[in-house]
């Protein structure tokens, strides 16, 4: 741990290091220009355009080439990138951004407010997942001059929500390249053009993506790196081997197997860290289908949660990488209700008595009833949790059958056909509950939309809290509304957030200025450099 901290200090401030760690050699505290950073990319991306596709897989590559209006700093607070300042009107319906001047696209044309206008109205509002909901009430974007852009909303838009969301959902691609074309088939989707520190060079399908230094970058003298190369390695063991042989120097967002993450922690060549990835936190989830009579009874849902020793699961199956969640908002978020505890701690006796009370006594062979469990396979831990749930519930007399699908099949079974009783999956928290968390609880989503409320559960009280919080512009009131909301959903337990987990990066110790903001693998790397 102390080695990690030392490395972190070294990468954040040379002065600080000089004072605090006099034993470190100083020869390399001065950033070195040059070098190639090789990065592991675990899955091939269909489209390299963060204005069309919001996902970490896209950001790992494109955020070096294309920039968003704001980025986050080390504490997760929004900081200027393409936008230099922002103000909100008193009613929260008008938000004005000042844009950076003197920025040029990689093809030489100037970056202006008209680019932002086009992205907001045509791409974010119409095409970009998560942003179509975020920008639902955006009705106009004005461009009073080339470097001012005014977002006009029909309902109040909390400034903190918008800024936090824009770090991921505010990437800007050039209007002159996309306008009047078929946006989904535009060749720039796989040969991106942006304003970022690196220029796209080539994308060899199945092999690699290369970007090189942008000599005309607006941060003068940066970036330090000559090139960034993303190597597409889909097999987790092969990716670990690539790290160990030095073929790649970074694997972010926990793309390696848990066993390898644990093993590499002991390897002095690497640092395994979650600091620098705080903006993305995720939960292991347990979804209940309320169309099943037994599960629509809150006592049964509570009994199920009481029956699962999630602490044991984390220690033994996840190598201790995580902790029991206390609700849908993670403890690292500013919306986290202080002092929250897991609402239903492990207690099989309590579970049994709740089930008896609900009227499901043990029958033949000690079985109360049988449930069908669908694991939504987007991580090796999901089927592990499914098995653990199966074994835990057997102890209290609930028999569980696991039905296996691949991810497309599982999403279909759970979110379209409702062909499940319980499901295990992942939830990702994206900086603000309104971005991608409340849709898990808000009723009224059309069937077939994954990771939205398709469980047959509805609460007018919760719906109202969600709607109110999404348009509340007073940050303190907003926090209070979310605290009420957490209380309400913990009470009724429509979904159980089982664990709270961080993403991990494995990074070579040669990489300097790494992980110096809250979403570093998804940020621009303009100041990252490599030790010789």
């Amino acid at each position, binding site marked *: 741990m102390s080695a990690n901290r030392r490395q972190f200090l070294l990468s954040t401030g040379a002065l600080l290091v000089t004072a605090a760690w006099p034993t470190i050699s100083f020869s390399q505290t001065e950033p070195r220009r040059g070098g190639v950073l090789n990065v592991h990319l675990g*899955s*091939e*991306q*269909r*489209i390299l355009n963060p204005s069309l*596709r*919001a*996902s*970490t*897989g*896209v950001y790992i590559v494109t955020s070096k080439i294309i920039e968003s209006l704001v980025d986050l700093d080390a504490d997760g607070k929004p900081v200027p990138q393409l936008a230099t300042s922002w103000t909100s009107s008193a009613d929260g319906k008008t938000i004005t951004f000042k844009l950076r001047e003197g920025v040029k696209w990689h093809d030489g044309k100037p970056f202006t407010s008209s680019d932002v206008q086009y992205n907001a109205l045509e791409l974010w509002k119409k*095409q*970009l*997942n*998560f942003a*179509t*909901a975020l920008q639902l009430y955006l009705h106009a974007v004005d461009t009073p001059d080339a470097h001012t852009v005014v977002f006009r909303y029909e309902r109040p838009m909390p400034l903190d929500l918008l800024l936090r969301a824009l770090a991921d959902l505010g990437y800007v691609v050039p209007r002159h390249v996309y306008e009047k074309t078929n946006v*989904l*088939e535009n060749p720039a*989707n*796989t040969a991106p053009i942006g304003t970022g520190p690196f220029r796209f060079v080539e994308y*060899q*399908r*199945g*092999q*690699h993506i*290369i970007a090189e230094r942008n000599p005309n970058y607006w941060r003068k003298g940066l970036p330090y790196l000559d090139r960034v*190369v993303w*190597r*597409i*390695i*889909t*097999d987790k*063991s*092969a990716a670990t*081997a*690539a790290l*160990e*042989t030095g*073929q790649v120097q970074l694997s972010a967002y926990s793309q390696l197997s848990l066993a390898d993450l644990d093993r590499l922690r002991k390897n002095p060549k690497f640092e395994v860290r979650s600091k620098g990835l705080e903006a993305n936190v995720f939960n292991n989830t347990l979804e209940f289908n309320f169309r099943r009579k037994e599960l629509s009874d809150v006592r049964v849902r509570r009994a199920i949660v009481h029956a699962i020793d999630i602490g044991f699961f984390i220690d033994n199956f996840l190598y201790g990488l995580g902790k029991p969640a206390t609700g849908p908002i993670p403890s690292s978020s500013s919306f986290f209700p202080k002092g929250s505890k897991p609402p239903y701690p492990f207690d099989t006796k309590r579970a049994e008595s709740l089930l008896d009370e609900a009227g499901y006594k043990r029958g033949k062979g000690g079985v109360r009833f049988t449930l069908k469990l669908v694991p939504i396979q*987007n991580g090796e831990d999901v089927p592990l949790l499914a098995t653990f749930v199966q074994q835990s519930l057997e102890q209290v007399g609930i028999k569980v059958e696991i039905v296996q*699908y*691949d*991810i*497309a*099949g*599982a*999403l*279909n*079974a759970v979110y379209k*056909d409702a062909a499940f009783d319980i499901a295990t999956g992942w939830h*990702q928290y994206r900086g603000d509950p309104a971005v*991608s968390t409340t849709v898990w609880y808000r009723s009224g*989503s*059309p069937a*077939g*939309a*994954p*990771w*939205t409320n398709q469980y047959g559960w509805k609460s007018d009280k919760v719906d109202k809290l969600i709607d109110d919080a999404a348009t509340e512009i007073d940050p303190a009131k907003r926090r209070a509304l979310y605290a009420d909301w957490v209380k309400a959903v913990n009470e009724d337990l429509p979904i159980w957030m089982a664990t709270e987990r961080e993403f991990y990066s494995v990074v070579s110790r040669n990489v300097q200025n790494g992980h110096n903001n809250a979403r570093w693998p998804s940020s621009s790397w303009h100041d990252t450099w490599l030790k010789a």
Partner: protein
Amino acid sequence: MRLFALAGRRLLAALPALLIILAGLFLLLQLAPGDTVDALVAQMGGGDATMIANLREYYRLNDSVSVRLGDYLWRLVHLDLGHSAIYGKPVALVIAERLPATLLLMGSSLAIAFAVGMAFGVLAARRVNRWPDTLISTLGLVFYATPSFWFGLMGIFVFAIWLDWLPSGGFESIDVSLHGLARVADIAWHLTLPTVTLSLIFLAVYLRIMRASMLEVSTQDFVRTARAKGVGETAVVVRHMLRNALLPMVTLIGLQAGTMLGGSVVVETVFALPGLGRLAYESVVQRDLNTLLGIVFVSALLVIAINFLVDLLYARLDPRIAGTH
């Protein structure tokens, strides 16, 4: 000439089979739950209902199965393999990009498996029931029984991580741009481990077949006659026994062409090679129907072509085969 007529007939006969395979696969894949938009949304980590509905419209997933199948076959008649939903470009182009790596891997693995398998088989047969035979047969059994992903990972562990002799994956070096012979050498260097990994299991099969075949031929009358005529031992083995023992080996090449394509999925994944096998796997996971059908089409053509070559080889090895047809 008669041989070419035979091959032509074979090719014509393969056409209806090809059609049935493609239509069957198309219908079979309709049974898989989830479509390409489900897979896409899974990769994005979520999205809302309107966006998803728009994408379904865009990929024309709302049309009926019969309309889409009809469309596909009609396009196939024009030799148009369609558009890939994953890569957003023509399937023919996507496959053309991936084919070289697979062909190279398959070709070199087959060559190694065949050559080494033959040599070991002959050696084992010549020393039957003595220690070289026992050793070779045991090795063959081990190669055959071990899954190729394990061999691959062990190969990476020993030769890439531990000894640092060979690259752990990839098709060629990308830090430096190489041309001509240097590039060929570089690719060969990268393909060493994958080729050996893929060839081991096939090598074991060839070894067993060659050994059995040699033993069988050695008891035949013409071998005894040759020996009785006083032909030297080497000449007996090479000219009389080997040529006859090779027939079942050649048959096996035709049969294994398809299997090898399947086996390359694992090897391409473990070694991060941009080949057809991995593309096929990716297309299934991403429900990219056009690409998958395109791969099946190309693989079928490949198997037909290899079998055609095998037919030619037959005639060379045993003139009676060309004669009887």
